[in-house]
């Protein structure tokens, strides 16, 4: 049984000889082949190559060679990470005639060195522009916990594949919330590391000054261990005495009752009373929105001039509007970003970790994609990033954890730290997990031991 198994347990079983890498890989491929049609998370399977690499791991085991930490562990990538020999589509048909990648993306290469095996590319919003994983070319990824509901985006295939138990971990990217939103809606762990901490080489860009590469997992231990493997650094000591504060103001509005209650339980456990606020949060969200539109639009403008009709209409119209923004608006957004960053850094002189909701409610229905904002129904696609976008602007590390026992479909919480302080996030997440307040959302399929 490999479905729902963690990377840690898969690696242990292969290392100990309990099962072979090839049988593990075959089971993973079988699971995806049998079950992905219900959620449509996968866009391409590297079945043959993955089996060859799994056999190579088994040969190492037979020769009693030392194994790297993730030997034989399967993983998937958002369809914008280069896989050598494969055309990177970035969720579009626009790039279909580009040459196959000459080499793996930097993160994929590091994971291969660690023994992990790429198995699949995973669905996304076209060019990562969206929160829905509703793709005109490759279809809609559905939430594994209720297939009538959104998985979130833009890394929706990556979150759904972990939530469905297909793969123990997957790669995604986060510009405005594209890891945190789907992690929250699908009930898995997600990490948006500090801007610039992990190499982006070979990950197709969207908004160069905001893009961050990260990952999804089913367990906190995998989230932590795989982060340090991808960062190519030893695991850092985790601080135990953390100063924690709950963000209020903007981040306390529009919460569903279940989410408000869950956050109250977290605050009560941590002994937090009251909240703290970040200044000018709506403007921070606006700046993130404008920078993304302008950088993304400018990136695609030459192709939009030549072949606008090849784009997903929803993406195309946003990119064109962004490309036509005046330079003064973009520069002012980047100036505001500098100011906001300084305010946020100052806030971290008083606290180690801030907590905030990831998304205000459960996954919206696909046939009624609205959420309540200001007491009124509003477009989910436009507003699912309400709490993630302001926190994207400074470049802080953010861990999205799945809240436990909410009595609802998955709900997520953001843990936010000062730049480079991912270790503080892992430490607080562990405390909340041990207290029974955080953990992967249950799935109706029997989970592997």
């Amino acid at each position: 049984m490999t479905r729902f198994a963690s990377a840690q347990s898969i690696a242990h079983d292969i290392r100990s000889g309990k099962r072979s890498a090839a049988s593990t890989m075959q089971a993973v491929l079988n699971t995806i082949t049998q079950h992905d049609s219900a959620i449509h998370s996968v866009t391409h399977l590297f079945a043959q190559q993955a089996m060859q690499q799994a056999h190579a791991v088994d040969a190492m085991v037979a020769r009693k060679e030392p194994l790297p930490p993730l030997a034989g562990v399967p993983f998937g990538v958002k369809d914008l990470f280069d896989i050598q020999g494969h055309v990177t589509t970035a969720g579009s048909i626009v790039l279909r005639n580009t040459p196959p990648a000459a080499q793996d993306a930097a993160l994929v290469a590091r994971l291969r060195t660690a023994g992990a095996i790429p198995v699949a590319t995973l669905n996304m919003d076209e060019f990562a522009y969206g929160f829905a994983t509703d793709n005109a070319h490759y279809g809609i990824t559905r939430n594994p916990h209720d297939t009538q509901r959104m998985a979130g985006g833009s890394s929706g295939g990556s979150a759904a594949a972990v939530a469905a138990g297909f793969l123990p971990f997957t790669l995604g990217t986060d510009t405005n919330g594209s890891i945190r939103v789907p992690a929250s809606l699908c009930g898995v762990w997600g990490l948006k590391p500090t801007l610039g901490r992990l190499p982006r080489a070979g990950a197709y860009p969207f908004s160069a000054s905001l893009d961050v590469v990260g990952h999804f997992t089913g367990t906190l231990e995998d989230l932590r261990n795989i982060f340090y493997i991808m960062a190519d650094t030893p695991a850092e000591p985790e601080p135990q005495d953390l100063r924690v504060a709950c963000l209020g103001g903007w981040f306390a509005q529009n919460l569903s009752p279940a989410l408000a209650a869950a956050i109250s339980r977290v605050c009560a456990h941590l002994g937090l009373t009251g909240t703290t606020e970040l200044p000018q949060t709506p403007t921070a969200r606006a700046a993130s929105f404008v920078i993304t539109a302008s950088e993304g639009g400018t990136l695609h403008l030459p192709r939009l001039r030549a072949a606008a009709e090849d784009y997903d209409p929803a993406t195309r119209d946003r990119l064109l509007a962004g490309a036509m923004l005046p330079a003064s608006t973009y520069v002012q957004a980047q100036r505001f970003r500098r100011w906001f960053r300084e305010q946020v850094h100052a806030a971290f002189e008083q606290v180690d970790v801030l907590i905030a909701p990831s998304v205000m409610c459960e996954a919206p229905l696909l046939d009624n994609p609205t959420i309540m904002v200001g007491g009124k129904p509003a477009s989910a696609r436009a507003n699912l990033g309400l709490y993630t976008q302001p926190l994207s602007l400074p470049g802080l590390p953010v861990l999205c954890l799945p809240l436990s026992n909410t009595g609802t479909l998955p709900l997520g919480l953001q843990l936010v730290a000062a730049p480079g302080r991912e270790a503080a996030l892992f430490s607080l997440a562990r405390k909340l997990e041990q207290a029974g307040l955080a953990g992967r959302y249950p799935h109706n399929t029997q989970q592997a031991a």
Partner: protein
Amino acid sequence: MTSPPFSDEVLVAARAQAMELALPPACVAGVIANTRVLQNYAALIRDFPLPDTCEPAGDYTP
């Protein structure tokens, strides 16, 4: 926020013309709608006072 002196339709057409960008008819309505959203966000940023010494953010060097 002060209303623009001309419509979003005129604004989008003027910006496209200035960039020598031929907007396909199928996307004009969508571009106008998205421009409207961005204009609201741009106004928030424009109206926030910043000192002249506040430089645009570049690479993240915290």
